[in-house]
């Protein structure tokens, strides 16, 4: 019997666990959160004793059945509140999995797992492009606002502007409205023409994602009901206020996202929720030695195998396409990792392929325009941790004597703070590339999660697979 460890209990990880169990494997699922579900099927804390959790999310019942099936399976061990802080590659075998158990960032119990096969399903976090004032309190990522509303019932503000690009802005706005907030407007930076071109090309591909389309239509109806306008070709180009957001500056954008001069308009607001797509959480795949696809996502073959022996990857770390696509990938990864015969899952493989086609469509409809740096000011912060501003980055890049990567890291300290570049790396890499330099996004964070020295000093408990 194969011992499979799945890291992440979001749509991808749970589907992987379910299929690995079906293939006959012994499965351990690890997640740092208190409950399974990941970002999409975010569960309310158990202590809330919610009588109607299904009212807060689409597809809750099917998800709940799946998570119970997995957790209650005799061959499954599900451990919540468990952070994987490092992976240790081994020749020809799956890497060792180093975990910390207990409350987040606490001195917890340290353990090492020795899987025979490893499925990585760690998901993504929001990507947010910087704009003047994006470091003011009251600016949140779109995902944070969503997580707080859906997962904790906390509303980030009362007069909120949602902005960025992608269909994800719709459920975010809908959740804020549902929680009793006022969403002044939802601003999609891409013009309607780009959206149309991206979404309507090869319409047949979209049919299998009809469920997703219905879900989006539901959010759109919610916006209409609340008279919240959805506007394309517009963005928040600045947030302003004394110690917190008090107003935002909105501008019309050209198709390349450069602001059209003279179209700026000031709107009083107390919160901004911004999302310009997602950044995959790649530190564990990189630590496992997995090759990346153009430096961006984990490279997988037709059966979700990575370039590392016995390591599989699924969900947003291999491409951004939403929960159904992540689950489809997870199902394939779990089945194959668990020792199942790929010939027996043609339906799952087809579903996975359609998910990938959806990802390509999403990327076409919601690209990031090249003109966004026009809304930066010299003093605009790029790295939130170290306070590096745009002026400092430009100066470092102008120095011909230094190679870009070192100049940027050491000269500006961008990416060297507590988040280790998780938030600013894509921005710095893009701005550097524009000036002819090259900064690789290393995603090379051997310590994937903070660990205290005292924990490191003590011996770990050794476990086979659970």
């Amino acid at each position, binding site marked *: 019997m194969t011992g499979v460890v799945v890291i992440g209990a979001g749509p991808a990880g749970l589907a992987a666990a379910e299929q690995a169990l079906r293939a006959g494997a012994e499965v351990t699922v690890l997640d740092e959160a208190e409950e399974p579900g990941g970002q999409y099927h975010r569960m309310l804390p158990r202590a809330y004793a919610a*009588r109607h959790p299904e009212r807060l999310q689409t597809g809750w019942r099917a998800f709940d059945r799946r998570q119970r099936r997995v957790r209650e399976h005799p061959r499954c061990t599900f451990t919540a509140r468990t952070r994987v802080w490092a992976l240790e590659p081994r020749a020809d075998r799956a890497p060792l999995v180093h975990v910390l158990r207990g409350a*987040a*960032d606490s001195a917890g119990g340290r353990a090492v797992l020795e899987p025979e096969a490893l499925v990585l399903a760690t998901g993504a976090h929001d990507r947010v492009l910087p704009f003047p004032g994006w470091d*003011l309190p009251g600016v949140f*990522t779109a995902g944070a606002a969503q997580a707080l509303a859906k997962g904790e019932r906390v*509303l980030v503000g009362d*007069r909120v502007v949602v902005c960025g690009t992608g269909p994800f802005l719709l459920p975010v706005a809908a959740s804020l409205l549902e929680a009793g907030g006022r969403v002044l407007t939802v601003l999609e930076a891409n013009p309607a023409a780009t959206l149309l071109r991206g979404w309507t090309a090869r319409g047949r591909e979209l049919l299998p994602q009809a469920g997703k389309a219905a879900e989006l239509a539901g959010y759109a109806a919610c916006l209409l009901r609340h008279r919240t306008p959805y506007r394309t070709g517009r963005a928040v180009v600045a947030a302003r206020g004394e110690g917190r957001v008090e107003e935002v500056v909105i501008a019309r954008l050209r198709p390349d996202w450069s602001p059209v001069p003279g179209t700026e308009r000031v709107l009083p607001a107390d919160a901004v929720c911004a999302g310009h797509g997602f950044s995959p959480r790649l530190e564990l795949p990189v630590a496992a030695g997995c090759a990346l696809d153009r430096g961006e996502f984990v490279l997988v073959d037709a059966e979700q195998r990575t370039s590392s022996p016995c390591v599989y990857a699924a969900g947003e770390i291999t491409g951004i396409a939403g929960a159904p696509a992540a689950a489809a990938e997870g199902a394939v990864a779990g089945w194959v990792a668990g020792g199942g015969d790929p010939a027996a899952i043609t339906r799952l493989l087809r579903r996975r392929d359609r998910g990938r086609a959806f990802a390509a469509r999403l990327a076409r409809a919601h690209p990031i325009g090249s003109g966004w740096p026009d809304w930066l000011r010299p003093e605009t912060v790029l790295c*939130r941790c170290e*306070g590096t501003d745009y002026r400092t980055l430009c100066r470092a890049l102008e120095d011909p004597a230094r190679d870009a990567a070192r100049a940027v890291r050491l000269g500006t300290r961008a990416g060297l703070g507590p988040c280790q570049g998780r938030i600013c790396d894509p921005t710095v890499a893009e701005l550097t590339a524009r000036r002819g330099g090259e900064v690789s996004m290393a995603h090379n964070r051997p310590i994937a999660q903070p660990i205290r020295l005292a924990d490191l000093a003590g011996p770990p408990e050794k476990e086979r697979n659970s």
Partner: protein
Amino acid sequence: MSPRMVPAAADRAGRTDRPLSITVDGAPVSGIEGQSIAGVLLGAGRLSWRRGPSGPRGVFCGIGACFDCLVTVNGEPDVRACRRAAVDGDTVLTQERA
């Protein structure tokens, strides 16, 4: 207006709140069982509790990626408030205190 908690009576999810209390820089702050420390602080109307290099910081990413929300909990520094569940009686120190 400030951030706030959806009132239990108006919550479609039908929650049953069990109150808890933590102290933040010595002052009592109430929340409910199950909330994160960031949730308790936001629910109490607080948007920021840390000083970053360019100004005050609170929650940004909400899922443990940005490290903007760090606090000290029961003497343990650098705890991500958005990831740590609040426990009745927790002593929280912000990095904005005088």
